[in-house]
């Protein structure tokens, strides 16, 4: 069965300066036991993966979070965000399923919150095929071609009744905190904001009129469940659209004061839905506690008598203390910090803040949900989303059945570090992590140096401050590896196949990473580009740019075909240095994946301000010194020549798997030397994003004692099974004994 990871009993040794974070606080009829609050956030579970929902939320309460909330929870089929996954509380089945979350959360001693949501035109209703209503008939600025039906007064009463009925179901399910959710430009804020509300009746025009819908909804919900549940409201105090919408100095403070008596807890944010990256600020553009200038105004200006929770990717316990002591917030809100480390509060309480696994602000979690497929993932925490379906606990690691075997992990990049760390935590007798370079971290070491441009602000919407926080991937693992007595890390050591054979390990794990194609091989043409050769001193791969190995001329062309951030990051950096940069891609948008990480708007602002030339639907047909010959993919006769001094090729990556294949090819030698298992993980198996490399290393370590570790074990799929069904029908899909205990 599973065992806690800590080796010896530590005396509980909380530093007194953190005591304030553990003081309870009253919210309405409920007592929040400490100041750690997981604000509503998406995970891809909804009401239709109740196991995922319950286990993911509850593991945070187990880890000390005082309250956890669902994601946005639809109150009616007219609010349907498919293909994005929301929770739903439409009927008894949903009550039953979300009740599982409440039960498990209560078992661990926390409060459960539900964020009642109606999206209006932002929710395209692709599953329900219903028609969303809205205050005025203006199509969504976020979705494609979705118009709302104009809500007349009967509609308004119906909409408010939807909230009330949902609140009643929420109470039945066991929720302690019920939200009327008006941030991210959803319905209540659509009424409040003149950006959405062009009405001329008593629900539009003046402030009181625009606030009426929200106020009445709060009154009705309060009347229905307010004695039993805390009534919370999530409010974007400034939508960052200027006077056209909500501004902190105007309607922001006014609205808080106006309905303060109806609210037990304020959950404050900034931004809207089209750019909710201003709220879930990626570390590339926003530092810790970045919403303070807006959300901090409410308490600072004495605009409320009620407790306030706010966010800002707050991971540092000292920052948390400062926030509460200074009166900025009463409660520390965290979404991403709670995903990255469900046990953050416990680690502070136990006097081991150095064990906190800090969020790096990459927004990979958000990206998977944005794409529309569960589960949510986390670069730092490979167990996020796997608590139920694979039974993985972020802090508990069962002892490996084959712990007596010695392990050699070759390569201390993201996959290798993670694998060695988890093997160490699983009690393998000896793990050697051997790295060629003089420090661990692998590609993280140079990737984390990207993300800067020229240091200037973009129209007050975020300054490119770099990916330095991504280095926390290495920081955390370095600290954990140092603590593991059964893991040795050896640097400056490049192993040949013979060295590996003679190493004396029964299990060999190759994590040797990848490299960028040097000849322009790419996913568009599947062929090299004539003239592409990064061994020449005027052609570079992205890592060469960061490592400063070659001089870079004034005119640069960056070809990016991967679709994530690499090409754009290189363009940012070089343009920030004053170079004239052209950024080219074969698809319709550069760095398309960054739409999903919410980094795109600020990236585009930065690139435009820096004068980077952006060329989409364009490929290179050949590269010559001083000239890149490009063509439009829709019409190859449409050509253009770019006169440049330097070319950076970010076309695709290739695995460094030679060592693995060399070892694998001599099975007799492996057997002779006693090597029972040979595995390939991370970029060395297939180049991928950091989050997936870390997951790959983690999975192998978790399953190192399964019959065939190279093949992932089945995971629970929460799907409709035909006929009569029990929970146990799903549990049997898990092969091993889970590290997450059933309640």
């Amino acid at each position: 069965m599973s065992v806690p990871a800590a080796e010896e009993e530590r005396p509980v040794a909380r530093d007194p300066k953190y005591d304030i974070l553990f003081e309870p606080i009253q919210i309405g009829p409920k007592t929040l036991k400490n100041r750690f609050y997981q604000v509503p956030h998406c995970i891809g579970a909804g009401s239709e993966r109740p196991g995922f929902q319950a286990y993911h939320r509850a593991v945070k309460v187990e880890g000390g979070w005082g309250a956890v909330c669902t994601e946005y929870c639809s109150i009616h089929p007219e609010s349907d965000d498919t293909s994005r996954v929301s929770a739903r509380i439409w009927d008894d089945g949903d009550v039953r399923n979300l009740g599982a979350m409440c039960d498990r959360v209560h078992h661990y001693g926390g409060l459960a919150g539900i964020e009642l949501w109606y999206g209006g035109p932002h929710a395209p209703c692709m599953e329900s095929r219903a028609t969303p209503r809205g205050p005025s008939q203006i199509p969504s600025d976020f979705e494609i071609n979705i118009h709302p039906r104009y809500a007349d007064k009967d509609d308004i009463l119906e909409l408010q009744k939807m909230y009330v009925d949902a609140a009643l179901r929420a109470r039945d399910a066991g929720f302690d905190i019920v939200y009327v959710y008006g941030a991210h430009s959803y319905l209540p804020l659509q009424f409040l904001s003149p950006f959405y509300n062009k009405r001329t009746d008593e629900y539009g025009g003046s402030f009181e009129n625009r606030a009426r819908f929200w106020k009445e909804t709060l009154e009705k919900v309060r009347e229905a469940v307010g004695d039993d549940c805390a009534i919370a409201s999530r409010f974007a105090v400034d939508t960052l659209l200027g006077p056209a919408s909500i501004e902190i100095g105007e309607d922001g403070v006014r609205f808080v004061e106006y309905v303060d008596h109806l609210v037990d807890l304020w959950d404050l944010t900034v931004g809207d839905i089209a750019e909710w990256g201003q709220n879930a600020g990626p570390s590339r553009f926003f530092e810790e506690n970045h919403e303070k200038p807006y959300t901090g105004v409410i308490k600072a200006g004495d605009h409320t008598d009620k407790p306030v929770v706010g966010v800002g990717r707050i991971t540092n316990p000292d920052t948390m203390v400062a926030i509460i002591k200074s009166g900025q917030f009463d409660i520390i809100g965290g979404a991403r910090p709670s995903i990255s480390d469900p046990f953050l509060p416990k680690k502070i309480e136990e006097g081991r803040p150095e064990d906190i696994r800090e969020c790096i602000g990459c927004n990979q979690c958000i990206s998977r949900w944005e794409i529309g497929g569960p589960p949510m993932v986390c670069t730092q925490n490979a167990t996020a989303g796997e608590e139920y379906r694979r039974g993985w606990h972020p802090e508990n690691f069962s002892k490996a059945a084959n712990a007596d075997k010695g392990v050699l992990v070759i390569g201390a990049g993201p996959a290798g570090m993670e694998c060695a760390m988890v093997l160490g935590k699983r009690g393998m007798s000896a793990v050697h992590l051997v790295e060629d370079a003089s420090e661990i971290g692998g590609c993280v070491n140079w990737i984390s140096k990207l993300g800067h441009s020229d240091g200037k602000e973009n129209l007050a919407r975020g300054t490119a401050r770099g990916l330095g926080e991504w280095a926390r991937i290495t920081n955390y693992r370095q600290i954990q590896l140092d603590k593991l007595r059964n893991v040795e890390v050896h640097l400056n050591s490049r192993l040949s196949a013979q060295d590996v054979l003679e190493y004396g390990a029964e299990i060999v794990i190759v994590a040797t990473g990848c490299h960028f194609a040097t000849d322009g091989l790419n996913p568009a043409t599947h062929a090299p580009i004539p003239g592409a050769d990064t061994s020449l001193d005027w052609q570079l791969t992205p890592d060469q740019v960061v490592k400063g190995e070659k001089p870079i001329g004034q005119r640069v062309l960056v070809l990016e075909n991967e679709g994530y951030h690499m090409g754009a990051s290189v363009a940012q950096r070089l343009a920030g240095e004053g170079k004239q940069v052209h950024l080219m891609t074969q698809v319709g948008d550069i760095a398309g994946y960054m739409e999903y990480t919410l980094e795109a708007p600020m990236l585009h602002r930065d690139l435009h301000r820096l004068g980077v030339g952006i060329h989409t639907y364009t490929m290179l047909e050949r590269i010559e010194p001083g000239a890149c010959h490009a063509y439009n993919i829709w019409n190859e006769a449409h050509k253009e020549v770019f006169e440049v001094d330097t070319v950076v090729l970010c076309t695709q990556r290739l695995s460094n798997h030679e060592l693995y294949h060399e070892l694998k090819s001599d099975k007799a030698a492996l057997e002779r030397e006693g090597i029972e298992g040979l595995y390939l993980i991370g970029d060395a198996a297939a180049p991928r994003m950091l989050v997936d490399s870390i997951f790959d290393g983690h999975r192998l370590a978790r399953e190192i004692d399964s019959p065939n570790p190279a093949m992932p074990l089945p995971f629970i799929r929460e799907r409709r099974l035909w006929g009569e069904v029990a929970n146990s029908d799903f549990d049997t899909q898990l092969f091993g004994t889970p590290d997450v205990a059933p309640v």
Partner: protein
Amino acid sequence: MRIVVPVKQVAALDDEFELLDDGAGVDPDFVERDLNEWDTFSLEAALLLSGAAGEGEVVAVSVGDDEASEALLTCLAKGADRAVRIWDDALQDADVLSVARVLAAAVERESPDLVLCGVQSSDAVNGATGVALAAHLGLPHVAVVSGLQYDAGSGTAMVERELEGGLIEVVTIRCPALLTIQTGINEPRYANLRAIKQAREKPMDELALSDLGLDDEAVTATAGARRRRLRPPESGGGAEIIEGSSAEAAARIADIVKERMSG
């Protein structure tokens, strides 16, 4: 050629630890033990010399209890040929000079060409065991060596002493000699899993005081100091706040810096 490398298994305290009985010692539950960092460098120096000579024996020697066998096994895994561990209950609280006396008895039997010690241990930080040992053995010695050139069986070695302030002094020393080796002189190798396993098959002798012709009296008579008690350091009571203008504060800081950096 035979090179003897005296090593120590040092104790590192966890951040949370407890003292025993009014300061007689530290509760062993809170102690983590490892081969002394400096000794990895002196061992490596020895291995490099025997490797270059293509012959010779590297012998690791330690005064330590059962757990110190781990440190010696690490040395054997890294390439030492043989290990010797000396222990006796009477050595429980032996100070640096007593340890040097006992080590001398064991090292003498080896008739070494070179004795390579670490400059200091990370827990006691005496910096004295090596040179005290040299005195017992009657060997010429150089302390804090950051560079070493020696040919097997040679009558001299050329060494670099690492002085304060980044200065190096190059000296020649008559051999056989004892050198105390500074960190950074080389890059210590690590042992792979096979070597770690095979280390258990290499010879490790365990000697008591009587095997060396010593008795408890020899230990107490040679002790340089008696430890009355251990206590926590005075809690700073917070910083001494330097008052005054920025210029005044800077002047005071400059004084403190110059004072501390002297010597």
